[in-house]
């Protein structure tokens, strides 16, 4: 408000044109906040181009897209590509893998940071705690290409240290990366390796905001450590767990492309091929643009419904939700 004091020319000029109504004209605000609107240009151009113009491109899911004709010029074909998809066993396999790998992550990888945070919270020797945390956080900073390269090398049947250890016990080398049985295990363990340590940070912050008086009272009442965790710590971080669960559930249709792609090989496609790798292969490598777009659109829509639903459920349970 005080701004009008020293910008006499601008608003004053507008005022003289009779725009000085109680609900001031748009021009007044555009002029008053001109720098702020300028500030928005780069980011909003980005969102407009890469998030909204791309929506227009999604139309090719309902067309037979040809590069030469462009998005608009290609002929409409209705739901043809969706019929093709739902009729192909490849698609159902990919969908099943996506949901299954996410389910494994939800069951095995999601609780890991909670458990770790509870344990880390019991450490009293500070330098030890910090050293452990430093090491646990490390893989989070490294890209999946590198992590996958390390995993493959570690599990190599001929030169890997894991199989060397197995050999000491007289066990034959296991082909972890090419076995459909072992591959999902490698996937889950690698998820935990990469993110469990880093995931503890949010939980540790939530734990540290719990009123210490509660623990004092519990101790006086003779509660054991386990009972304190069960009755004070866990309820204290319930909200945080809820929010992170929503985020995780919202990603049910989306397994990290880089994670899967780098661990994947032709021998384990049946258990490792997911929507994102399928879209990459059919779309960019085989140039079946329309079909790949249809898969992507299907994924995005289900993902949207999932986030909205889970958010509603969490709200109903009285945990605040995300918005």
């Amino acid at each position, binding site marked *: 408000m*005080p*701004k009008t*004091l020293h910008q006499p020319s601008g608003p004053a000029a507008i005022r003289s044109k009779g725009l000085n109504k109680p609900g001031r004209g748009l021009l007044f605000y555009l002029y008053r*906040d001109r*720098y*702020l609107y300028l*500030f*928005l240009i780069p*980011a*909003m151009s*980005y969102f407009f*181009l*890469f*998030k909204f*113009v*791309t*929506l*227009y*491109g*999604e139309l*090719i899911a309902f067309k037979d897209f040809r590069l030469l004709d462009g998005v608009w010029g290609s002929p409409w074909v209705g739901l043809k590509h969706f019929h093709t998809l739902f009729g192909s066993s490849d698609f159902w396999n990919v969908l099943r893998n996506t949901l299954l790998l996410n389910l494994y992550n939800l069951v095995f990888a999601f609780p890991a940071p909670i458990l770790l945070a509870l*344990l880390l919270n*019991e450490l009293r020797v500070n330098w030890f705690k910090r050293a*452990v945390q430093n*090491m*646990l*956080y*490390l*893989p989070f*900073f*490294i*890209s*999946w*290409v590198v992590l996958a*390269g*390390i995993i493959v*090398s*570690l599990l*190599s*049947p*001929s*030169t890997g240290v894991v199989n*060397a250890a197995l*050999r000491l016990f007289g066990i034959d080398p296991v082909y972890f990366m*090419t076995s459909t049985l072992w591959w999902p295990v490698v996937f889950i363990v690698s998820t935990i*390796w990469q993110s469990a340590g880093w995931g503890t*940070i949010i939980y540790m*912050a939530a734990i540290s905001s719990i009123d210490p008086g509660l623990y004092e009272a519990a101790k006086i009442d003779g509660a054991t450590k386990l009972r304190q965790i069960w009755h004070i710590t866990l309820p204290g971080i319930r909200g945080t767990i809820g*929010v992170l669960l929503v985020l995780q559930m919202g990603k049910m249709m989306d397994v990290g492309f880089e994670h899967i792609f780098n661990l994947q*090989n*032709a*021998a384990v496609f049946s258990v490792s091929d997911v929507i*994102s790798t399928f*879209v990459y292969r059919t*779309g*960019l490598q085989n140039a079946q643009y329309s079909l*790949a777009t249809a898969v992507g*659109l299907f*994924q995005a829509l289900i993902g949207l419904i999932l986030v*909205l639903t889970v958010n509603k459920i969490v709200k109903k349970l009285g945990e605040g939700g995300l918005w």
Partner: protein
Amino acid sequence: MVNRLKSMPLYLFLALCAFITVFPILNILAMSLSSSRAIISGEVVLWPVEITVQAYKQLFIDGQLLIALKNTVIITAVGTVLQMIATTLAAYTLSKRRLKGRQIFTFMVMFSMLFGTGLIPLFLLVKQLHLINTFWAIWLPGLVSAYNLFVMKSFFEGLPAELEESATIDGATDLTVFFKLTLPLSKPILAAISLFYAVALWNTYSNALYFISKSQLLPVTVKLYQMLQTPIDSLLAGGDSSQYIQPEGLKAAAIIITVLPILCVYPFLQKHFIKGVLLGSVKG
């Protein structure tokens, strides 16, 4: 003392977790410095056996990984600056309650978080803009992270409003307030967010894989992927693996060269990352 003894298993367990976490990286480091013979016979565990820098020498003579490393440095440096400019300016603006149309812009950003962009529409757009085989194909499609934008916006909203009021009474424009007042007060968040961006750019992978095919322009991650891929496929046949031994050492060395810069700045990175995560979670 009794307490200490009782918690011994806890300390041992967590020490084991920490060791298991870093062991694979130490193992690769040891492998990259060991002789081919030692790698074949599976003797390398934590320390290099028959130390040699042959693998590194070969990679340096070959030079491809170095070019890729140079590309990654450019991608990271320029990209971080571009992303920070776009994000900071927009976050500052969206933090001003008096701004008309603020909700519309905020909704645009929210929507982009909920509805994932399809790969093919993105690819067609990038192609149409003639960004294929340029670094812009990495910078532009990831220019602003909605998450970082919101973290920064809530930080700006937390700054005392009186500062701006008194400055505007003294005749300062939005430009002056932003550059002279807000930015100097926001160093911790600027550091955290620029490091978020920088690490993501250093590890940039998918966009380079999708949009860059010229070998000379590939970032180190995709180059590494290509190097790692060749022997893996040969291993699939399950045949005699001894002939791929040399690649094992080379792969290990390439992996180490790729992560070394991250490892060098890790303590510094980690401190700021944690701050950023905590700043971000205050709101969430």
